[in-house]
Every structure is written in structure tokens, then in C-alpha cells.
């Protein structure tokens, strides 16, 4: 049996396969550039050039927020050689187990050997300096500089806000962000993200066989990074710092606004913390420590707290009732303490004195005149519903129940009870004036936040208008504020009605007034004390004021939680703030020391 011809069959099979493979090679390499292009897209990569974020200055040009360079220690697994892991761990101060885990992760899908992965992120220059000189001993490890926020004045943590790397949720919502980008999470950083962020640049590079990167097409496709815009905040750093000092070891807040412009001069929420804690590697750890703190330092009491307004609300009630014609400044109402409690010796005040004495029965009577005006003579419940709606509409013009169009993120709106609100709560026609009268004196369901309260003072100081409170006065050097912050909002109350209120507020800080103790010889302060009841705990101490009486420069709302009567703590803090702002400091060092050392954290 001769099978010699089978050698040709064998060679034929081999030859056929070789031809098939050559044809396939031709298809992949020559006939189309599809695969080659796919390769280019892989090997030529985009390098993101991060812009530096805009700086934030205070109203006097002092730096509040700027950037610092930090270093990410990276590993390029392809270039790592066997190295003394123990020495390395000691050098960069990293537990061995963690390093092992990081190295393993750096080469497992979707990470690959030829792409750098972070080992330690965001080291401060001093941390990097500890091993910078000896890093060369570990091929494959290198550092990459990035910028982080830093706060030279260490103030205004919640006001300025913080930035963080974008997470998955943000990426889904904002497609123009990419992994690794920073975004403002709070405060000015958040509300002016668009301006501060700048524009990411893109550089196209390819790596040659020595691992050196070259630009593609001489950089013609590259786009330069645009730095973020600098912001000039309305904040007065000195005043802000002073406010934070006065509020140390207390809970509460201070809101200070320049009435004529709506510029927020200081926004203190106490207890506060050093904003630098939320930067860099320790961020996560510090953040959770702050989040666990029972005193809630991350809670911005100035914008997010909603308090019952208490006696201070009588100022708003007065303006509303005057404008609605329910009372005149000469209306006298008996201090009938059978209807509602009162204090002090008085019996039949007019409006001005009722404000000075903070007469509860008087303002119960005021609201009754607004709400029960016999608009429906046969049905007391319907009459109250109509009256309350009229009242609600008027009082909202003073900024209650809204966020005022402010640029403060997360501002709470509070609650201005409406007829619908009570219908839901009690049922339609199941309530009347005697059900709801406690809102007359700022108790009951009425809720405001401290910025709204300060804004009310601005309205009074301006005798009829406000500018939405805002935190940035210039976008870019020599720029202007956002357009909505240069126009006045008229509250629809005649200027003459303000005189009674202003005069009363002047008397509050005068002989016989509840805040007489803070009267200054050279500056006329117009104020109003308040207490917010928190049964069974101690009242919140509240004081609002503006100064000077004519041509006011500053309006304040001060809340000290669980501190009792408003005149005790909130009023002196206000006067110290006024002196600081208008005169650069107080001469009453004893008061200043007493306040700063007081600890009210029961």
C-alpha cells in the first residue's frame, strides 16, 4: 500500500491554512484602517489639564479661599521593579497590607498595567517632602501634583463651603463633569461653582517605548485650561472672625447684612470648625467626626435652622397691620393679661410703646383686627380664613416663607401659616382666630430662619425695601454681583409706617428698654429683643438690630440657643459686632471678655 501521495494532501492542508491566515492578515492590516484607528484611540490619550479654581477674597481684598498644591502618589505597575516593600511602607507611612491591596487593585480590571493608579491621594507638601528625595529608589512610583483648597483665615467654614471629587450621582446628573473633577458641595463654593470651576483643558499625548509622553500633532488639537474666576465676597473677614470668637462655646448664629446693598457682612453658625479640616487626606475622617458631633457643627444654623420668631415678629406684625389699615400708630389696646400673658408695668400702650414693652395682648389685638374684620359677618370661621389670607399675602412681602432669592445654598423657607395650612391641620371652617392667635406674637406654627429675620431688619432700616441677601459682590476683579443682587425689592409698606417701628426700636435700646444695657454713647442702635420658647428647655436668646439709626450701615440678627432672655446674650453680642464693624473694636473689654469666655452648651 503506497500512501506517498498523501504528502501532498498534508502539504495542501498546511498551505490552505497559511493562505487563510495571510488573507486574514491582509483584512486586518491592509484592507481597512478600522483596527488601526481603534489602536490610535487607545494609545493616544487625552490628558486632562485641571484648571485652578477661582480664589475667594473678602470685601477688603483679604484672601479667604485659595489653592494649594498637593501630591498624589501614583504607581505605574508596568514599571515597578521588585522593591523593599517594608522600607517603602515606612517611607510613605502606609500599612503593608494596604499597599498590597493597592498594588493588586492597580493591575486588575478595569485598571491595567500601563495606566497609573493612585497609591496615596492628596498629600500635603510637608508630607511629600518627607520622602520626595528617596522616591527615586522605587521605579514605577511617582507623584502627580494637583490643587486643593486652603483657607488662610480658617473662618466661615459653612459660609464658604467645601469642594470634593465628583461622585457617581453627580456624574450622572452633570455630564460635563468627569471622574476626578472637583465640585463645590456647599456655601459659596456650591452657589458659584460655574464661575469658580474654570474650564478643563485637554492635551493629546502618546507614550513612546521609553514611556515618555509626546504631544500629538504639535499640540494643535489641544485646548488650554481656563482658570476659575476670582470672587470678591461681601464678607468682612475681620467681622466674621470676631463673630466666630464671640460665639465660641455657644450654639446659635449671627447674620450681619449691609441694609442698603443686601451684602452679607458676616454669617456665623456656631459651633463652627476650621474649614481646612475638610481638605486633603483627612477629609473623610474629619467629616465623619463632625457629622457625629452632637452639637452639629455641620448644620448651618443661619440658613437651615427654622425658629419660631418670637417677640421680634411683632415688628413685622406692626408694619403689616399699619399697611392693611387695621390699626394706626395711635391705636391703643388694653394689656388684658387674661387673654395672653405679659410682663412689665403698662396697661394701655399705643403701638410704639407696645413694641418697646413687647406687649403680648396688644399684638393679639392687632392680629385680631387684621383677621377678624367682619368680612363675613355671619361666619367667624370663614371670616378668619379670609382675613388670614390677606394677612399672609402682606406678610410674605416682607420676605417670610421664601428663600429671598439669596445665593446661600440650602436656605430654608420657614413657614407662614395660611388658611389652607389651617384647613389641612384642623379641617375647613374648623378653626377661627382664637385657634391661631399665637402667631400674633411669633409663636405657634410660624417659622422663620435667621437670614429672613435679619432681612426684616434691613427692610426696616431701609424704610421699605431690601436687596436679596447675597455673599458675592464682584465676580472677577472689577466685575459686579449677579444682576438680581443689584435691584431693590419693594415690600409695599409706606415709608411713614416705618417711623413708629424705628422709633420704638430706638427706645428698646434706651432708658427703660429691654436692651438698655447695650446703649452706646456714639452710635444709635435700634433693636428688638426676643425669646424663642423651647419648653421644657431654656429659651433661645434672640436680638435683632440695625445701626446707626440714620443711614444704617449694618443690620444684625443674633440667636444664642438655650441661653434665656434676649437681652442677656444676644443683645451684647450684637453691640460688640456693631462696634467692631463701625469703629474697628469695642472699648468695653470687660463685656467682650465675658462673652467670649461664656460657655452655653448645657
Amino acid at each position, binding site marked *: 500500500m503506497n*500512501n506517498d501521495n498523501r504528502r501532498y494532501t*498534508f502539504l495542501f492542508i*498546511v498551505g490552505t491554512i497559511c493562505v487563510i491566515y495571510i488573507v486574514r492578515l491582509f483584512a486586518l492590516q491592509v484592507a481597512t484602517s478600522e*483596527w488601526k484607528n*481603534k*489602536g490610535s484611540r487607545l494609545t493616544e490619550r487625552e490628558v486632562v489639564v485641571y484648571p485652578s479654581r477661582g480664589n475667594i477674597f473678602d470685601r477688603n481684598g483679604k484672601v479667604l479661599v485659595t489653592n494649594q498644591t498637593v501630591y498624589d502618589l501614583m504607581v505605574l505597575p508596568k514599571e515597578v521593579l521588585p522593591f523593599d516593600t517594608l522600607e517603602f511602607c515606612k517611607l510613605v507611612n502606609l500599612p503593608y497590607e494596604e499597599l498590597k491591596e493597592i498594588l493588586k487593585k492597580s493591575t486588575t480590571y478595569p485598571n491595567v498595567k*500601563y495606566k497609573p493608579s493612585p497609591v496615596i491621594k492628596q498629600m500635603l507638601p510637608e508630607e511629600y517632602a518627607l520622602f520626595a528625595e528617596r522616591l527615586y529608589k522605587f521605579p514605577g512610583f511617582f507623584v502627580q501634583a494637583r490643587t486643593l483648597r486652603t483657607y488662610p483665615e480658617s473662618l466661615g467654614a459653612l459660609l464658604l463651603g467645601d469642594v470634593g471629587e465628583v461622585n457617581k450621582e453627580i456624574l450622572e446628573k452633570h455630564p460635563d463633569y468627569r471622574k476626578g473633577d472637583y465640585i463645590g458641595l456647599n456655601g459659596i463654593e456650591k452657589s458659584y461653582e460655574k464661575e469658580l470651576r474654570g474650564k478643563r483643558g485637554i492635551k493629546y499625548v502618546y507614550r513612546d*517605548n521609553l514611556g515618555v509622553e509626546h504631544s500629538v500633532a504639535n499640540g494643535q488639537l489641544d485646548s488650554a485650561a481656563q482658570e476659575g474666576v476670582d470672587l470678591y465676597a461681601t464678607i468682612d473677614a475681620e467681622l466674621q472672625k470676631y463673630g466666630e470668637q464671640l460665639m465660641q462655646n455657644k450654639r446659635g448664629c449671627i447674620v450681619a447684612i449691609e441694609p442698603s446693598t443686601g451684602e452679607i457682612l458676616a454669617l456665623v453658625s456656631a459651633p463652627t470648625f476650621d474649614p481646612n479640616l475638610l481638605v486633603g487626606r483627612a477629609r473623610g475622617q474629619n467629616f465623619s467626626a463632625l457629622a457625629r458631633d452632637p452639637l452639629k457643627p455641620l448644620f448651618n444654623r443661619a440658613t437651615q435652622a427654622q425658629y419660631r420668631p418670637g417677640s421680634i415678629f411683632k415688628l413685622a406684625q406692626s408694619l403689616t397691620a399699619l399697611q392693611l389699615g387695621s390699626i394706626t400708630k395711635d391705636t391703643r389696646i388694653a394689656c388684658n393679661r387674661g387673654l395672653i400673658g405679659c410682663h412689665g408695668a403698662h396697661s394701655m400702650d399705643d403701638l410704639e410703646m407696645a413694641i418697646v414693652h413687647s406687649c403680648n395682648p396688644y399684638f393679639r389685638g392687632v392680629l385680631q383686627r387684621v383677621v377678624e374684620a367682619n368680612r363675613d359677618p355671619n361666619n367667624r370661621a370663614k371670616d378668619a380664613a379670609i382675613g388670614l389670607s390677606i394677612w399672609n399675602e402682606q406678610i410674605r412681602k416682607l420676605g417670610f416663607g421664601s428663600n429671598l432669592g439669596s445665593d446661600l445654598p440650602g436656605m430654608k423657607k420657614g413657614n407662614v401659616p395660611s388658611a389652607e395650612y389651617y384647613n389641612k391641620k384642623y379641617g375647613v371652617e374648623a378653626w377661627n382666630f382664637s385657634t391661631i392667635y399665637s402667631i400674633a406674637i411669633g409663636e405657634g406654627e410660624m417659622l422663620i430662619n435667621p437670614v429672613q429675620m435679619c432681612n426684616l431688619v434691613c427692610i426696616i432700616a431701609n424704610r421699605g425695601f431690601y436687596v436679596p441677601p447675597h455673599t458675592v459682590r464682584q465676580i472677577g476683579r472689577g466685575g459686579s454681583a449677579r444682576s438680581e443682587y443689584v435691584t431693590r425689592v419693594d415690600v409695599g409698606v409706606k415709608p411713614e409706617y416705618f417711623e413708629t417701628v424705628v422709633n420704638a426700636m430706638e427706645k428698646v435700646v434706651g432708658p427703660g428698654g429691654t436692651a438698655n444695657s447695650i446703649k452706646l454713647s456714639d452710635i444709635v442702635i435700634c433693636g428688638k429683643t426676643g425669646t424663642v420658647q423651647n419648653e421644657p428647655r431654656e429659651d433661645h436668646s434672640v436680638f435683632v438690630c440695625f445701626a446707626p439709626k440714620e443711614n444704617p450701615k449694618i443690620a444684625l440678627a443674633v440667636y444664642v440657643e438655650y441661653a434665656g432672655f434676649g437681652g442677656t446674650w444676644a443683645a451684647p453680642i450684637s453691640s460688640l459686632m456693631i462696634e467692631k464693624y463701625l469703629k474697628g473694636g469695642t472699648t468695653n473689654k470687660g463685656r467682650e471678655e465675658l462673652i467670649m469666655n461664656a460657655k452655653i452648651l448645657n
Partner: protein
Amino acid sequence: MAASGKQNLQLDWGTIALYGTLVLFGWLSIYSAAFNPLLPSPFTFSEEYGKQLVWIGACVFLIVVILYLDAEVFNKLAVYIYFFFVLLLMLVLVIGKEVNGAKAWFGIGDFGIQPSEFSKIGVGLFLSKFISSSGMQLKNLRTRIQAFAIIGLPAFLILLQPDVGSLLTFLAFILVMYREGMSGNVLIAGFASVVIGTLSIVIGAGRTTYPYFGELSSIWTFIISLFGLSILALIFVRNFVVPRSRRMLYSVVVISMVLASSLAFSINYIVDNVLEKHHKERIYVMLSLPVERQDATYNSEMAKITVGSGGFIGRGFHQGPMTQNNYVPEQWTDFIFSAVAEEWGFLGSVTVILMFFTLIYRLVLLAERQRSQFSRVYGYCVAAIIFMHLLINIGMVLGLAPIIGIPLPFFSYGGSSLMAFTILLFIMIRLDAERLSVFR
């Protein structure tokens, strides 16, 4: 042990030159693919290219030893060599090191030895001795079973590792047996099985809704089609074939139908229920069927991109962006051909394929000019083994075969593979060198 007539040795220098060229080209490719810019010296023994130099050195030593041995030794010791490697294959199952899920390696310090690579030498020698010693007819069923047993024992042990790649290369011996007289129907049946198997996987991957039976694997469509085809064939036989052959052809058609259906059904069953998920995915990737996991297609995709990146003339030595940036994982082992394709382009790749073809062609020539049947069968073994590796390895790189980890002869990084192929080839060269002094 020096051969008596070593001055008379007629070495086939052409084959040796081809071997040298392939090994050199292979080493250059490894040097490029595994290049570490921080350690550019070829003598960096911590990197693959340095290690491969050591292996090449070891091969030179082995070549000298083989050429000094008496050619008779290989014939005489064939059985012992065979069983020595069978023993190693058993041993590796017990004390072997598990790499990528297969117990295929003896680990000695930093180095590993893969006995399955060497076992082909034993099978080649023993099979040649078996076929030549008795002048046996491979048409004889008994002989055929014995020959299959020689191949099957190590193949079975390799299956236990399990190392599908090495197992497949044993198909080379079927080609050898065909050359030595085994019926060509085996090849045809094998070819038909590959076609039916492929179709059953491709069709079986889908699902179809059948009347009365609801949604089932589409494999049933394929089996029904086979059934329909055989009915057509029966009608054809009945009407167009002379009556005397009809009976025989009826049974051929029916048996083929039954065999094809059960093959299709069992392959479909194995793919769906027996194979591990990653094996199934590799097969699906090769057949361009949809795969759930993205990374299952990664290697195949990267290999194709790397090949395509080369273009017609290639990117140049050390200039391939895909190769230099290690986009293909462990490119210097089983995917080394993609580095050749990227850096030397279509021209270089075709050159390599043609060099392999020339080597195989040369081996067939050498085999056919042997006087001894032992040498001839052995020559075919060498040619067929190299061919099977070429077929599977380059097919894999080009996306025409599933991702099966077997080395490209003389090119891929690795001591076991390089040494085994060197021994395999140089035994043939040694045998050929004495062809004139051997009588039938």
C-alpha cells in the same frame, strides 16, 4: 556515546538556518514586547528577554548533545522516553503547581517546567517506532486502536490537568496516521465534525419558540434541518442511484444523520452545561457570538487591534504603540505573533508564516527522503506538531480560533516550549543526518 560516523554527518543546514532565524526573530519580538525601559540590557535576567537568552543557551547545549548521540538511541529508547514523560504527566497531577487553573507545571524556584510540552517528543518517538517496527497496517482496526492508545494515554493525563490547548495539539498525530495509511474518511469525518460542531454552537446559542413546545434552544432547528436533509438524501439515492448501491448508501445516510445529530446535540449540551463559564465565553468570542462580560472579549479585541495597528509595513522595531504599552496581557507568551504583526506589519507577518510553511515543507521533504520508516513517521510527527501549534496559535491571535493558551513554536517566551521544540526538531535533523547509513 559519540556517533561513530559523526564526521560523515550530513546536517541539513537549511533547516538549521531556518530554526536559527525563527529563534532569533522570536527573541527580538520578546525583547520588544516585554521591554522594560529601565532595564534595557538584553542580559537583564529578571526580565523575560534575559531569561529567554538563558533558555536559548540551554538549547544550544541540547543541540550539541543530540547531535553527538547515536541516531540509534532514539529508536531504542523511544518506549522508555515515552513512559518517562507519561510518568512525569502523572507526577505533575500530584505535585504540580496550579497556574491559571491547570496543574501543568513543576515549579523549580523561579522557573517552571511544563511536562506536556515534552511529552509530544515521547509520543512522536513511540508512535514512529510502533508504526515502523511491525510494518503494521493502520487500516487494521486492532493496530489503529493500539496507535490511538499510545496517543490517548498522555492526552488523557493532559485532559486531567486540564490543559485544553496542549490536548488539541495531539490532533497532530491523526495527520501523521493519515499519512501512514489510515483511512482518509477519518480526516473527512473530522472536518465534518468541526463544521457540524461550529454550527451547533452558533445555532444553539439562540432560542426559538416552537409550536406546542414553547421556547427552546435553537439547536432543535438544526437537528430538524439535519433530519430534513437526510430525507432529501434518501429520496435522491432512491431515484438517482443504481439499485445495487442503494442499500449501502441508505445505511450511510441514516448512520450519518444519527451521528451528526448526536454530535450536534452533545456539543451543544457540553457548551451549555459542562464547560466552565470562561471557556464557554472564549468559544463565543471566537464565533462572534454575544458575550455578557466585557473583559471576556478583551484579549481577543486587543490582539486584533495590535495586529491591525501594524499596517502594511509595520511600526518598526520597538515602535509599536500597542506592544510597547502592554495592551495585550502577557503578549510575550501566547500572543507574541501580535507583536510581530504590529512592529513588522503585513510584510513581516507573512514572512513569518512563510518561514513556518517552509520549515514544515522542508520537514516533509526530509521525512519523505528517509529510508527508515521510523525516521519518516517521526519527521511527519515534527511537521504536524509544529503545524498544529501554528494553526491554533496564529488563529487565536487573528481571532479565528478561540483563546487557547498554546505557544508559537520558537517564538513564544518560555523554556519548556523552546526546549521541547528544539529537541523535537533536532532529533529529526540527527536522524536525517544518517539517512544514507540506514537501510530499510
